[in-house]
């Protein structure tokens, strides 16, 4: 309890992290509420209001089909952020399982780490593109592809953290009194990896949003009519000269979200720094 309070206190004192939290919170509110409360259909084509610049009725203007850009960016944000979240959760679950099993069994460790090395020697974005082609370029397909492409990073970081923790005296003590290895892994080692895991996954959330935008931008990710930030921006490239706002708003949405996540990640890294936590590791 005490450590939780300490953690929150340290977080609230980290101003750049707080800015990140507030920005992300605002983006989430907009992205979640606009599609519910807005009466404008994000896919409704209206040729009478084509390419209107930002105004009171269309605060982000309209695109070449006369669709309201604000509702489209908000709806697209749902998909982009959902993919980011799914990838974050997917890599966490898979990463923890693989890394713990690798920490438990040396043979499994050798095989898995070789495979991870092979996957890491391959550019993750290209891997994600090839996998998106395998799993279909639906929202789920993109999430699965990105999860597989990014899981080696989580496994590697967790594994090295587990290897260090395995040498700690409290783990040796647990082994000495005959606690089952699986219990040691889940009860004694896993909690120790949490600071590393939390920071890594915050950054991975940001990477995943960037990656989804990138592969949807080149047209192999999320497909229309589903709007994601990447494909809204991709649609807008040809309008750069006549309607620059169609590029600015989705681009800014990606940038701000990723910036907020990076601020939070940097802040969490400072707050959860093991050197600072060492003093109260047991409370």
């Amino acid at each position, binding site marked *: 309890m005490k450590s939780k309070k300490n953690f929150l206190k340290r977080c609230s004192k980290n101003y750049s992290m707080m800015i990140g939290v507030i920005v992300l919170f605002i983006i989430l509110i907009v992205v979640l509420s606009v599609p519910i409360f807005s009466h404008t259909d994000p896919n409704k084509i209206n040729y009478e209001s084509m390419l209107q610049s930002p105004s009171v009725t269309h605060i982000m203007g309209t695109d070449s089909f006369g669709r309201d850009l604000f509702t489209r960016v908000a709806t697209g944000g749902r998909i982009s952020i959902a993919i980011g979240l799914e990838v974050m959760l997917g890599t966490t679950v898979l990463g923890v399982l693989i890394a713990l099993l690798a920490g438990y069994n040396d043979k499994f460790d050798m095989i898995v780490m070789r495979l991870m090395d092979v996957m890491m*020697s391959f550019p993750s974005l290209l891997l994600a593109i090839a996998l998106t082609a395998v799993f279909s370029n639906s929202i789920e397909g993109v999430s699965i592809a990105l999860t597989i492409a990014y899981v080696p990073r989580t496994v590697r970081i967790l594994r090295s953290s587990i290897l260090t923790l395995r040498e700690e005296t409290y783990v040796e003590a647990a082994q000495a009194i005959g606690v089952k290895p699986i219990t040691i892994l889940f009860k004694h080692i896993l909690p120790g990896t949490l600071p590393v895991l939390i920071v890594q996954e915050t950054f991975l959330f940001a990477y995943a949003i960037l990656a989804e935008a990138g592969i949807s931008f080149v047209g192999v990710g999320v497909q229309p009519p589903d709007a994601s930030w990447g494909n809204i921006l991709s649609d807008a490239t040809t309008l*750069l000269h006549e309607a620059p706002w169609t590029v600015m708003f989705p681009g800014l949405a990606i940038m701000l979200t990723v910036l907020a996540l990076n601020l939070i990640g940097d802040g969490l890294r400072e707050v959860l720094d093991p050197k600072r936590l060492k003093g109260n590791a047991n409370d």
Partner: protein
Amino acid sequence: MFRYILKRILIMIPTFLMVAIVIFCIVNIIPGDPAAIAKGNDSVGDINLIRERMGLNRSFLERLGDWFIHMLQGDLGDSYFLGRSVLDTIKARIPVTLSLATSSLIVAVIVGIPLGILAALKPNSILDTSIMGISLIGVSTPEFFLGLILMFVFALNFKWFPSSGYTPITEDFVKWARHMVLPAMAFGLGQSAYIARLMRSSMLEIMNQDYIVTARAKGQSEIMIVLKHALKNAFLPILTAIGMIYALLLGGAFITESLFRIPGAGALIISSIRKFDFPVVQGALLFVAAAILIVNLVIDILYTFVDPRVRFETKK
């Protein structure tokens, strides 16, 4: 030293072969029938005949074995649709991607390193905070968004540079450079932000070392300390980062290529995936993966030159 390099090369071979197998497996489980697409262009053709011609009627393992053996002999097969060998198709594209990735890396290094050093000289000053603030924005901006902004400002409004296209460096250097400025900036600036952040933290760590304090106590000027003592050691972690960034640039070039309509290997992979031209996808992916493995190898070897500790460690 020689033994270390040899060992490093020998480790690379099985990794490359495994990467090749993984590539073949992934590409060949992509659902989609290239024969059906080929038949679309050939109204009288029999789909089974086309499949046979493409070698698609054989089992997965047979095809894998066949491709693998041919690959080892330097033959990557023929494109399904381009009427040329995969090798010829890729040969034209690889230099383009290399020139984009290299120019972007140059931008990243010449912008990132000085900024990182400047920020580290006066930690927590206004200069440091603003450099770090800007670089955080840089890290968070997708290259295609930055590319679009640069295109809007410098190509469409000022008309200083062409907004898209590519001229080979061998054909006309000036034209090549003019085509390369915006893509290299779009792609490189984000990475320079990353280098700046890393350079700063590496410099800060070095600047607190005892030998720097001693140099200061001896009355050496701050500039001399940075140039003579700090820089060389602070540069070590950056070298690894540069290698990683180059690999990232090679593997991520397809987005910038697609935005600026540069006919590189990345753009080839995207268009071939859409057409299910599997031999080309496999070949191009293999080339990119090989380029990345070579970059990592070169960085590791360079490391033994700059950091003698690596040499001693391998002797143990």
